[in-house]
């Protein structure tokens, strides 16, 4: 079926503030093929797509459309070529109807007025053609997330695009809706439309795609033809075979079942079903790794335990005492939390190390007269700086200007000043250089040695294996696998998170 090359991206380079994200990436899509794009989180898939759709500017390289070099500087540029992108984050406008959304900015008109009759008819024709469960005149406000995603797809289809980019299109679709989407993809392919299909879900990629490009660490890892798309092989390529045999790709896990249970989570269930019936325990001195794909519900679970968001039902016990989770109570009970989004949630960039460390600890800073003792505050931050080697070792330094690794140490440092029983860290080393990563791991390990229970949420498989004593894997809101006292490899964790059974090794 596949014909001539329709889109080609050659030698694409892109870096963000000096960190290379794409290096010499090639990507080619033929007319009428479904081309899947895979890679671990951070492999550069989204960046590549954003360069193709004009959201980011590339540093170097050239994009060709139907053989001719093109410059794509805005999303409109790529729309003009005949490329439509269905974004993962929805861009439908809730107060408008289905038809208004589909034809937004391109409404058919009669004189100065929108020709609603025609617009609704055109939308109905599209809906009939692809058999979507939608009505042109329904206001989007009244629709669920799955249906909103279908509108997004309809919008792409209505532009008679030659190339459709779908970024995790099934992420918020029900099984039925996803089936429908797969049929649509087949129909479009038979009409000669090309599709770039980005998904974490191997079974979909396996079923749908004609070819598969895999990115790893911002470089091309492989381009596989249909017959080579075999789950085990794909996972191997995504992680990197060479890496898989080197240190850090497998680990013998050991649990100490003698230690007392510190945290006991029972049947935690979300209001909006991002996770359900989550039960697990963490023992004193144990580092529990929580693995799985982004969006599996891990962050939501730990946020509920700490009490930032409330769970709909379920109980949390710390040292046998039932908690009423809220950040204030959690801090009081000895739970520390290092959030995923360090810059926005972890620390206050404009404040100094001293103030940041003191911020969660004002209940234990001495009071002098009617105000906080500056001396005690300073002494505390000096203790933190010394304990974990925060650099620069200047307590008055603004944290916002420090390196990522040291910023994270400040965040950790403020918790170290307390009597911690449980520390929850979410993506603790995202965007941090290798040296600082090791330092952060040893901070976590030392805490565990002192009897603190630690939960580490991470999408970095190497990190997960490196720090964890025991690993739980979440998938679509459920804990699907526990690795305990076994030898575990990156592939095993990834397969569990993907929902692929580990049959072919």
């Amino acid at each position: 079926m596949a014909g001539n090359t329709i889109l080609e991206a050659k030698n694409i380079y892109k870096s963000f503030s000096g960190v290379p994200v794409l290096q010499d990436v090639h990507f080619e899509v033929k007319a009428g093929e479904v081309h899947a794009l895979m890679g671990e989180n951070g492999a550069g898939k989204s960046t590549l797509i954003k360069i193709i759709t004009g959201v980011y500017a590339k540093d170097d390289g050239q994009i060709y459309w139907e053989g001719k070099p093109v410059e794509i500087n805005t999303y409109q540029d790529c729309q003009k070529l005949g490329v439509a992108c269905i974004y993962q984050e929805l861009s439908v406008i809730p107060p408008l109807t289905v038809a208004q959304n589909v034809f937004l900015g391109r409404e058919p008109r009669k004189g100065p007025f929108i020709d609603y009759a025609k617009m609704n008819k055109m939308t109905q024709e599209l809906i009939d053609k692809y058999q979507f469960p939608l009505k042109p005149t329904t206001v989007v406000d009244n629709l669920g997330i799955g249906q909103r995603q279908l509108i997004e797809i309809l919008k792409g289809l209505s532009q008679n695009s030659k190339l459709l980019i779908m970024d995790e299109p099934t992420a918020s679709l029900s099984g039925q809706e996803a089936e429908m989407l797969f049929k649509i993809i087949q129909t479009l392919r038979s009409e000669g439309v090309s599709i770039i299909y980005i998904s974490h879900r191997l079974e979909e990629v396996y079923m749908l795609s004609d070819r598969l490009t895999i990115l790893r660490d911002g470089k091309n890892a492989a381009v596989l033809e249909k017959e080579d798309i075999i789950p085990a092989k794909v996972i191997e390529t995504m992680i990197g075979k060479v890496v898989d045999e080197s240190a850090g790709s497998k680990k013998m896990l050991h649990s100490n079942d003698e230690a007392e249970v510190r945290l006991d989570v029972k049947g935690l269930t979300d209001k909006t079903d991002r996770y359900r019936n989550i039960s697990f325990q963490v023992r004193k001195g144990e580092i529990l790794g929580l693995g799985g794909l982004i969006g599996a519900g891990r962050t939501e679970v730990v946020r509920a335990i700490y009490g930032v968001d409330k769970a709909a039902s379920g109980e949390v016990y710390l040292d046998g005492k039932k908690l009423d989770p809220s950040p204030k109570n959690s801090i009081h009970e000895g739970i520390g939390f290092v959030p995923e989004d360090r810059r926005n949630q972890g620390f206050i960039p404009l404040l100094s190390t001293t103030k940041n460390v003191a911020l969660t600890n004002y209940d234990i800073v001495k009071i002098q007269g009617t105000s906080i003792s500056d001396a005690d505050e300073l002494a505390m931050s000096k203790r933190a700086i010394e304990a974990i080697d925060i650099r620069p070792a200047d307590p008055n330094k603004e944290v916002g200007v420090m390196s990522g690794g040291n910023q994270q140490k400040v965040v950790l440092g403020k918790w170290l000043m307390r009597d911690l029983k449980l520390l929850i860290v979410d993506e603790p080393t995202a965007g941090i250089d290798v040296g600082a990563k090791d330092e952060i791991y040893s901070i976590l390990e030392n805490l565990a040695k002192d009897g603190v229970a630690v939960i580490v949420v991470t999408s970095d498989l190497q990190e997960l294996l490196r720090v964890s004593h025991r690993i739980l894997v979440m998938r679509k809101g459920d804990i699907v696998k526990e690795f305990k006292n076994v030898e575990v490899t990156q592939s095993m964790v990834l397969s569990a998170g993907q929902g692929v059974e580990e049959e072919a090794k």
Partner: protein
Amino acid sequence: MKRMNQTTMRRLISIGMLLILVALFAGLAGTGEGKFFNETNLIEIVRNASIPAIIGVGITYVIITAGIDLSTGSMLALVGMVMANIYVYTLLPIPVMILAGLLVGLACGLVNGFIVAKLNVPEFIGTLATMLIFRGLTYIIAVKNDIGAIESVRMNHSQYAFLGSDFWYYGLYYVIVAMVVIVAIGQIVLKYTRFGTNLYSVGASKKAATLSGIDVMKTRLIAYAITGVTVAIGAIFMTAKLQSTTANLGTDFEFDPIAAAVVGGVALSGGSGDVIGTLIGALFMATLDNGVKMLDMNASYQYIVKGAIIIAVVIFDALYKKRIDRRAKEEGAKEGLE
């Protein structure tokens, strides 16, 4: 799973609130001659609601784009004072004076739009600043007497003052007719043109609107410009009714069209509401004003009652929206489970 459209629901709620208020005052302040509930007084209420409703058309557009315009009161005074200058110092015909007033309104609106949409000054601060500037300009050009004191300007030319009175038919004031026409046009533009759709898109998500090829800057700019024109129309009818203008015209007025829009279901967060809603809101606020007066309540309390009602409506809308959103989310999640 049939559920009433959210917009229809909100509309019924505002109509219900208006009817309850009317019934409440009819009970408390009485019906019949000289009381609350009689034809003359009810027409008076509609008349009083007309100017906020006319300016409310522009304000509705602005708030739908998730903006705000705090300068309408000062703008009203500036338009009035420009016309007064022409009236007092020139021999230009009245229609030219009216046209000049409209142009001043348009210019003020464009200035607001430029500051907010083009220079990206937060709308609250941008229009708060122009509120001061327009008022200052009004004082500068204010007609002064021999000793330099600002005086109230009489504008009682028959070719002009008739605009403040009624049509050939009793009670059918020009301002009411103008309001009906402007509200109708405003609603049609909002619902049946690309510009109207763009207003909603910009208010709901600037990013999504941009991705759909909508010129967000232009859309916002035009919304502020239209507000300027509606303010000018309001100023013309207001000065015609008063047959005079002063530099203090429209002090505290900016609150009225915003309150009308909010009560009528135009969410300050943008992306929802319409002109008819604002009209109902304007009628609600005018009824409240009138009823409180009829009850002989101290004028000071009127401010408090008005303020409290705005807060109640905003809280209600926030809670209502939260419930709707949660329901949509839950249904989305349920679908995901099937």
